[in-house]
């Protein structure tokens, strides 16, 4: 048992989860308490002891599923007897209204050419069965249909070096997956009194079925994975389907799903960022000597000023100005940026937001007016006037215009946050603007979505701007953003990295 656990811990670590030694000891103790009999309990116990963050849960779960796979007793596809018994079960469940129309799935299936896969009548039957299963909402039935669909249509062959996605695609195609939702809604409407659903009913039914369809898809994925494990073994598979943790995902190459996940994670982070950018060196606790208070204090020690008193520094209202590049070269990053922008703006008053490509425009009101992020992002990308000539980033021009039109709003209490890759398309960088801004502003931070090794290569002008910034940090993942926020908090200001030269005297 211990052996099993240590191998599992190794797997988890390989997948990127930080499992400490104490945690694995806890897991061993937990195992001792609950044993191995119940797989779900085992999963909960191992999860509770070794997976300490919800964002890691998905990775943990996948690793667990592969490592403690239910070894499928089924042979690989192609075994007719097995297919038949599965079909008998489905027919036998009596849940398919379809069956009452006379023909069972089993009969329909037998007469068919086995070589055929895809849009045969058989697959249409199955699609129908899937529909019925979804309509009934019965988990067991959905699982059976999923299993059958994989056996019959995934076209899995032992040893074939293709990934699970290919099989998934084939199975889903046979089920006519993309149209399932629409078809179900037709059926729902047909069964409603008068053939019409009220908008509320319609919406509820749609959500309900979306949920079931998702279940079907998961069931199919699980089934395919089981077969793959049986075929190739757990370890190689674990490696091939491993995904990075959400916090390590590169923003520039994130998938839609990952971006969605990031959006949720960004909300609490942005609040911290906003507060910390705005906070004026809270750690400098004392201001200048308060002579009056010192004298008063000295009375209690017989006129000897033992304890000097200092004025507390005035709390200042934070002023944050954010400039974000939303050009094509950072398209995915721009989405991330806008989300960040929106999140920060919604956390704190006194945040002014600007977006630029080669022109620059203020979007504070656009963001403030819409609490719904999707809507706000859409508005910003359509309504902000950020094109000047050709829609290729021109940091020089954007900054110059910013200084001309809004330069006065940057004062000694202003923190300037710039988000962009500084890819300037070989335009003039106009770095004197930054120098001017540097003199006016309290601090300038720059978050760059490019890997540090690319900085300054090609048309990147980052180093020309960097000398006027307090700090330029690489910000390609949630983790790096979080690190930036944490460092901001650490000592009131960022540690001066080698990327910065600090305040230019002037």
């Amino acid at each position: 048992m211990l052996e099993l656990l240590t191998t599992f811990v190794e797997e988890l670590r390989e997948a990127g989860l930080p499992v400490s030694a104490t945690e694995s000891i806890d897991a061993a103790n937990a195992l001792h308490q609950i044993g191995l009999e119940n797989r779900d309990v085992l999963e909960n116990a191992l999860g509770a002891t070794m997976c300490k963050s919800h964002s890691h849960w998905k990775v943990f779960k996948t690793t667990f599923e592969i490592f403690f796979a239910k070894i499928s007793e089924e042979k690989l596809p192609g075994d007719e007897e097995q297919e038949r018994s599965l079909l008998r079960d489905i027919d036998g469940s009596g849940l398919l209204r379809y069956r009452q129309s006379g023909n069972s799935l089993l009969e329909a299936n037998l007469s068919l050419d086995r070589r055929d896969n895809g849009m045969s009548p058989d697959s249409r039957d199955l699609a129908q069965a899937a529909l019925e299963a979804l309509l009934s909402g019965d988990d067991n039935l959905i699982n059976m249909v999923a299993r059958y669909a994989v056996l019959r249509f995934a076209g899995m062959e032992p040893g074939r070096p293709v990934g699970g996605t290919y099989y998934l695609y084939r199975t889903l195609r046979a089920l006519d997956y993309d149209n399932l939702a629409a078809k179900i809604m037709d059926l729902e409407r047909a069964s409603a009194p008068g053939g019409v659903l009220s908008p509320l009913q319609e919406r509820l039914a749609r959500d309900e079925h979306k949920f079931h369809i998702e279940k079907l898809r998961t069931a199919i994925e699980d089934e395919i994975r089981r077969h793959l494990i049986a075929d190739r073994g757990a370890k190689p598979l674990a490696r091939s389907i491993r995904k990075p943790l959400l916090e390590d995902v590169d923003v520039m190459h994130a998938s839609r799903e990952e971006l969605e996940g990031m959006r949720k994670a960004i909300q609490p982070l942005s609040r911290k960022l906003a507060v910390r950018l705005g906070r004026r060196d809270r750690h400098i606790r004392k201001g200048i000597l308060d002579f009056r208070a010192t004298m008063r204090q000295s009375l209690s020690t017989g006129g000897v000023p033992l304890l000097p008193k200092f004025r507390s520094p005035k709390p200042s209202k934070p002023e944050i100005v954010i400039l974000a590049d939303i050009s094509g070269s950072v398209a995915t990053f721009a989405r991330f940026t806008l989300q960040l922008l929106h999140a920060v703006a919604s956390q704190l008053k006194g945040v002014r937001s600007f977006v630029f490509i080669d022109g620059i425009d203020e979007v504070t009101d656009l963001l403030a007016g819409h609490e719904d992020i999707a809507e706000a992002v859409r508005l910003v990308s359509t309504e902000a006037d950020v094109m000047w000539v050709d829609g290729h980033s021109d940091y020089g021009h954007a900054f110059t215009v910013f200084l001309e039109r809004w330069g006065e709003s940057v004062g000694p209490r202003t923190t300037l946050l710039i988000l962009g890759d500084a890819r300037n398309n070989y335009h003039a960088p106009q770095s004197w603007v930054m120098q001017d801004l540097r003199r006016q502003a309290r601090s300038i931070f720059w978050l760059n979505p490019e890997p540090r090794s690319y900085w300054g290569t090609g048309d990147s002008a980052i180093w020309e701007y960097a000398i006027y910034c307090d700090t330029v940090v690489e910000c390609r993942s949630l983790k790096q953003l979080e690190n930036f926020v944490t460092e901001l908090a650490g000592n009131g200001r960022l540690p001066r990295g080698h990327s910065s030269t600090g305040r230019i005297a002037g």
Partner: protein
Amino acid sequence: MGHEREWAGAYMTDSAGVTNPPTATGLQNNTEPIFQSIEEVSSQLASVGYLSDEAISSVVYLADHLSKPVLVEGPAGTGKTELAKSVATAASAKLLRLQCYEGLDESKALYEWNYRKQLLRIQAERVIGSDDDAQQADNSWFSLEGDIFSEEFLLERPLLSAIRESGRVVLLVDEVDRVELETEALLLEVLSEYQVSIPEMGTVTASRIPMVFLTSNGTRELSEALKRRCLFLYLDYPDIERERKIIVSRVPSITTELADQIARIVRSLREMDLKKDPSVSETIDWARTLVLLGIKSIDENVVGDTLWVLLKYRSDLEKAAKELGIPQSGVARIGATHDGTARDGKR
């Protein structure tokens, strides 16, 4: 200040709870587990009106048997605090609660010396023993110090009380993500060793290991050190089955049909990507409202009239109304009646 600490070492009082620090292999675990099986956890919790699922029961069971604290994380209103309370009731244990907030410190979480009483004690000493010569004064100083740093002058705060309590205790450290990262360290000794070190008195070790729940809304990542010491439980919104059961158990007079409709609408709302998803407690409030209004079945108008029970932001109300197909007049009504409250809800 410094010299007091030094003296304290020499005059460590041997109060009842003071023992050597426990060894690494384990605490002197004379604490009987409360629950005998995972099923028992579920049934006990159900008997006090908390519907748990397998994950919750397993973690509570493990926490009980491994004597480890549980860190419960999840969105607001998913029953995190309720879980701790219910476990306390189910185990007929005393519930001690430490509400965390920014600026929480030692003197509010662990213990504090009753400074005024100490001062009084010293004053009293002076009055009584004013005639003593130097030698005696010296002696009396030692005894005095031993005196004023003793039990009598100690003000217990929740963490220390939980440790010293002789009966069953459930300690709830609520919203631990509100304290600063540095303050978290206060909890570490209590959570891993179940002891509190008081420099003037020595180490107080738990005579009976309390069950500890920490809750967090996940507004920030907690420190690794804290997480490492806890079992982790993520409480998400319940799935539709469980939500339905919760509604039925909390609102006894409701019909199953209505409960089902409520659960479905709430699920749809949670899918909508709102600013603040409706919580379980808000769902229950809504169910109660509908029952009070004598509503048998929900349609657009009913939703339009009562949606403000579930959603507290104006923008959320508008969005939900749009998505659920609530007629325009309904939206206007929501906007007009609850404009103020919705605004106020936003900070």
